[in-house]
């Protein structure tokens, strides 16, 4: 059984914006693995323990290789970095198209696991878009992978405050929500072993579709016209309260929201 996880490197803290191009200035801030990808990676690592192979992919500048290194440290078998100037400025459509091409290059996967969204773009579109490019089913908001079979996967997904258990035909793409899967830390043994592993660099020329106009900004259908802080629509005066008054207020407010006593 072949499993892939799509990862993204994001700025650790709020980064600056190129207001003209509408893109994040990624080079000027410390970076980390997208926190929403952590449950996806953990879910895939648990499946790997059941005799699956695990590949990880990321697209970004050369520094994005650090998230691949992290995945190696946790036990990924192979990793792939999509890094080329022609990928630059991609929207979610072009990003997921490039990832789909990369997955095809390696013969496809039974299960592709993604994070729910990213902390920088926060659109949550890539997983579904990736499934569409690969013409395979997609299921989002997965809170638990119950069991993996030869041709299907049983999942629990969250929907409207309720959990629904479904069976999905393989191959498919899923996005995993936060909750059950807390990403493990690497062991010292696996961290040291990972230092000897190397990622594979992927560029558009290597893909089945090598047309550069299908990648990066030229392959994108959207442009960010303007980025600005959300306007505050409500202003509340700060209250200065004693500890007793503050705790009474909190308890009262919590009871009001819950519709009863705490």
């Amino acid at each position, binding site marked *: 059984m072949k499993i892939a996880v799509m990862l993204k490197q994001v700025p*650790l803290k709020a980064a600056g914006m190129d207001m003209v191009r509408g893109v994040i200035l990624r080079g000027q801030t410390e970076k980390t693995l997208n926190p929403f990808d952590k449950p996806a990676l953990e879910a895939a690592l648990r499946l790997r323990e059941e005799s699956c192979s695990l590949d990880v992919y990321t697209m970004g500048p050369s520094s994005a290789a650090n998230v691949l290194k992290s995945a190696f440290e946790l036990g990924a078998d192979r990793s792939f970095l999509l890094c080329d100037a022609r990928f630059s400025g991609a929207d979610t459509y072009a990003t997921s198209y490039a990832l789909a091409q990369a997955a095809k290059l390696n013969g496809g996967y039974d299960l592709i696991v993604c994070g729910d969204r990213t902390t920088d773009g926060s659109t949550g579109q890539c997983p579904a878009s990736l499934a569409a490019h690969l013409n395979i089913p997609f299921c989002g908001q997965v809170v638990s992978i119950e069991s993996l079979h030869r041709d299907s996967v049983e999942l629990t997904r969250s929907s409207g405050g309720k959990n629904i258990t479904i069976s999905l035909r393989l191959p498919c793409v899923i996005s995993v929500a936060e909750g059950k899967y807390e990403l493990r830390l690497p062991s*010292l*043994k696996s961290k040291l072993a990972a230092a000897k592993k190397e990622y594979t660099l992927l560029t558009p020329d290597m893909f089945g579709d090598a047309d550069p106009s299908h990648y990066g900004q030229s392959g994108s259908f959207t442009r960010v016209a303007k980025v600005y802080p959300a306007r505050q629509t409500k202003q509340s005066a700060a209250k200065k309260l*004693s500890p007793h008054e503050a705790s009474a207020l909190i308890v009262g407010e919590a009871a009001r929201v819950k519709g009863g006593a705490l």
Partner: protein
Amino acid sequence: MPFFAVKDEYLDYLHDESRKTGESDSIAFPADTRELKSALNGLASFMLQGARTGLFGLAVPNNTPIVNLSKMNRVTAFRRDEGAYYISAQAGCTLGCIYDFLRNPDSAGLLKKEIELAGGLSGTNLFFPPAPSESSATVGGIIAAKASGILAGYGSLSEYLSGIKKIRAGNTEIITEVTLKLLPMPEYMWGICFFFAGAQESLEFIGRLSRAGLLQEDCVKAVEYMDEKTLGFLSASRENAARLKSLPRLPECAGAVYIELHSADERAAESAAERLLGLYDGLGDPDGTWAVSGQSETLKLRELRHYAQEAVNGEIDNIRRGDSSVFLVGADSAFTPDSFLRRTDEIKEKLCRFEFCVFGNLTGGRVRINLLPKDASEIDLMKNALEELKL
């Protein structure tokens, strides 16, 4: 300099992190040396306070006016001199304020003059090596208490204390401003946590580190031991501790050793990590260790050890809900790894009738023993036991 009656929002100033509570009628908050002198004028006795983060009750007033220095909290100078960096701050400035100055100089809390000073920070990534874990501690309090954190491999607090300004009130010398030496963050940082199924194995590991000479390695900056009880408190407090929630749940184990490696050379850090793994052989599951690298990930893992004292304090608070006269009994004792190993059985024997936990720094020699009384009747018995142990 006005004194306020100690009531309402000032009642907190009657106790410190030891959970002992004292008495006082009045409190003043001078913002500079002139106001401090004015506050002290005519006082025969007083209780000087910083952030009240001490564990020994030294900031608890005993029917004397309180002079609290928390408003003397500004950075006053920052300079670079022959490759080293120095920061001067008023005594009541917290480590947190200094970190804000160093890491977020555009943060709203800084005064215009401080933002100008912070202009010299461009491209630096500095830290204060002896900093204790508690970022709300004041620099004056740290110096007065000779407190220091887990990075004992960088040397003692005095090596990083470049200047000190004091005034005298009666027989008391009061620190008003300190100048601290800062270092650039090392390029390569590793945080590694080793877990052990038995206490004996964890102590054997420390012994092996000592015998192999690893404690003297330049890149080994912290070696921290945590016993089973400490780990239990950490596990129990995880749900309510945001700082611990970014870490996985602790495995079931009877002891842990946290080690931090710092180096300018990637290979040196890696090589030390390989040696550590070799020394761990046969003492635990190498797949069950935790290892991270990089500044942000290492600082996250360091929280495990940093939070130990807070987890213990949380337990004391739980006990105090039933008996408010209870407070933490403890001792900070100097141990080498060998002397710690030699005295472990004796400590266990003397303290086994009490609930106690042990954690601490085995490169700088300071190990913290916390005793948690079930009720007030145990406090004196615990103190006696510690005295008998000469801790």
